[in-house]
């Protein structure tokens, strides 16, 4: 990738914290975000743990500075995007060509599913304001308008890899001199629709998930949002706070195996990681840490693990799944984990893979289990794989 694209700021909200600093503290203190459902009103409340952001919509709305009746997807997005923008501290923001590129999987479904109760009983019933922001793009526009971003808005939805795609798409628009600044990432709120969907697939863990463990049982769903502020070299040079990392590689590939399952040898995952390395001009041995997709399902972890085995053999980088803290935040996960990857570079961190007990018998490596500081982290690979065979890998590098 010729013209570099820098990370000027990060923002995140998840079950383990309302901002980057709070999430880092929870990662260091090994505090997972899973718990019994408190906000989502589902019959699965006592059976399926989830990683909820602990605030009600009213509380989130006051944090976001938005109206409480809008979708939780937009509220979470706004909080993380505002943090990212504030963190970047771009002074002449309004004079720059700025874009907001977000991602999510079900848009305003958290409101639509309640609207549908009334609507199904009588198609003339149900409050229209609960369905007006149903489309995925609506959440993006609510936040773009709140941030005052007009030059470019877009939304990506490729299931669990959505927000990794929004990050490299944003970087490409900067590199091609179409935009100067892009706030890129994604958001998803827990919804009964998603919870029940994953439940029918029988891939939800009734206990707290154990990614990359021989005895893993499935995933826990989570919610949240994550954004990075991407800037061109010219903008980076003018910033007070100098960026410490850049997006050095990315690749989007397709597994082309099955609508929901990964191929046994992780073809798509392998191609995404290999392609990202090629784009960055790095060798596998240059990668210091892999933030795994690591959902905790039988299928994902063996596919991803096998792909890593093939690509990195015989020297494996340290790796972990932070979904053991945040749960699987779907459309937000790629961006939340991109933020964690960038912070790992800044502070020299390795995050623990919580609750890991037994190494997978097919794999010659195990994830990191202890939080480590003062590591030399120059290059981090972050994986995001999803339904539809959509696989994306990002590489962040220290400057």
């Amino acid at each position, binding site marked *: 990738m010729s013209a570099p694209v820098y990370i000027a700021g990060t923002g995140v909200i998840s079950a383990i914290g309302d901002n980057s600093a709070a999430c880092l503290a929870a990662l260091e203190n090994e505090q997972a975000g899973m718990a019994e459902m408190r906000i989502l009103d589902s019959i699965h409340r006592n059976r399926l743990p989830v990683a909820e952001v602990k605030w009600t919509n009213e509380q989130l709305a006051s944090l976001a500075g938005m109206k409480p009746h809008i979708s939780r997807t937009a509220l979470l997005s706004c909080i993380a995007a505002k943090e990212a923008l504030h963190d970047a501290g771009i002074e002449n923001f309004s004079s720059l060509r700025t874009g907001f590129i977000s991602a999510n999987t079900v848009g305003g479904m958290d409101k639509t599913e309640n609207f549908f109760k009334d609507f199904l009983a009588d198609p003339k019933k149900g409050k229209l304001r609960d369905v007006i922001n149903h489309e995925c*793009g609506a959440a993006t526009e609510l936040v773009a308008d709140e941030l005052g971003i007009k030059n470019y808005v877009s939304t990506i939805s490729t299931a669990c890899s959505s927000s990794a795609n929004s990050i490299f798409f944003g970087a490409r628009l900067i590199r091609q001199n179409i935009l100067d600044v892009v706030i890129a990432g994604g958001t998803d709120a827990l919804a009964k629709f998603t919870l029940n969907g994953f439940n029918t697939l029988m891939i939800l863990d009734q206990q707290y998930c154990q990614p990359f463990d021989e005895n893993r049982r499935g995933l826990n769903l989570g919610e949240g949002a994550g954004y990075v502020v991407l800037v061109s070299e010219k903008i980076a040079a003018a910033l007070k706070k100098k960026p410490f990392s850049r997006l050095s590689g990315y690749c*989007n590939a397709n597994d082309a195996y099955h609508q929901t399952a990964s191929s046994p040898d992780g073809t798509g995952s392998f191609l995404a990681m290999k392609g990202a390395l090629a784009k960055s001009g790095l060798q596998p041995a240059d990668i210091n840490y892999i933030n795994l997709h690591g959902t905790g399902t039988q299928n994902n972890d063996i596919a991803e693990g096998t792909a890593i085995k093939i690509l990195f053999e015989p020297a494996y980088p340290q790796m972990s799944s932070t979904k053991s803290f945040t749960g699987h935040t779907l459309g937000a996960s790629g961006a939340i984990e991109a933020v964690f990857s960038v912070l790992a570079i800044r502070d020299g961190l390795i995050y623990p893979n919580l609750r890991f007990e037994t190494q997978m018998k097919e794999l010659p490596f195990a994830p990191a289990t202890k939080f480590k500081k003062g590591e030399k982290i120059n290059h981090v690979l972050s994986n995001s794989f999803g339904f*539809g065979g959509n696989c994306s890998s990002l590489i962040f590098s220290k400057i």
Partner: protein
Amino acid sequence: MYIRSVGNISAQLSFSQLLKEPAVYTTNRLTCIEPDYSTIVDPKLIRRMSRIIKMGVAAGMECLKEAGINNPDAIITGTAYGCLADTESFLSKMVENKEELLTPTAFIQSTHNTVGAQIALMLKCHNYNNTFVHRGFSFESAMLDAITLINDGDAASVLVGGVDEITNTSHQLLSRFGLYKTNPVSSASIFESEGKGTVDGEGAAFFLLDKKASGNDYAALKALHTFYKPAGKSVVEKNISDFLAMQSVDANDIDLIITGKNGDRKNDEVYEQLSASLFKNKVSVNYKHLCGEYPTSSAFALWLAANCIKTGIIPGLPTAKKPSTILIYNNYLSIHHSLYLLSAC
């Protein structure tokens, strides 16, 4: 950038039929004329697909077939609403059964990337695959992804399309928002009724964009520009004139303007103003009486423009000069504005 081939499923049977006699409907809901899918997609696969997936996959496969390509460097889809029928099916059962006794099929197919994923799966295509879901910019985002991917040297030929479906529920709901005419009108006369509302539409249109000319392309795509929530009509005009200036194109060079007029009086004001200013004395045609109004309808307009350039004939204007430069200007709900410039190869 060249448009090498197209695949289109819409309320019109084909471009040649459109030249002969466009399909006219008396309704506020224009639905697609669907082909015999068994000639395009393996019948075993079709049975499991919902309507939008069938339309999207078939339009994509027809496009690839025409180009003679079975492994494009990228597959990129734009859809504002995604797979509505599957979403509704799972959602309704979830509400009715109070979250019990649910099956996964509709959920699996409800994700917005299903059309792009199914095309990749059928082709065993491991290349770049992306789906954009940004309302009236869904197709434009997909196009920009394709164009910048090609400009980056990461792809030479890209399959890119826009697809959206109407369901009974979506039509009922959008009607409650007052989007459509309440009295059925002939689709041929929606611009004359000058009332409130337009007609609902749907469609699937795919294009094979290629970096190099093949010698048998439909048209060259010169440029694409979008702008969001312009402050007024003068901002719209400025965006259009700046866009043309950037491409070193004079308004006199444009042979045909395809506009996104939809028959809603308020929506159409901006087009009326342009026809008295920037577009004065220009040959122009509308397209939403042919396919209806929907967030990815600009993909239909692009299909129309590509065919006009290839054949040299403009539907409804058989005696007009053969168009070699076409400008498309569309907006969706006055929020999402898009411009496309095409020329003969």
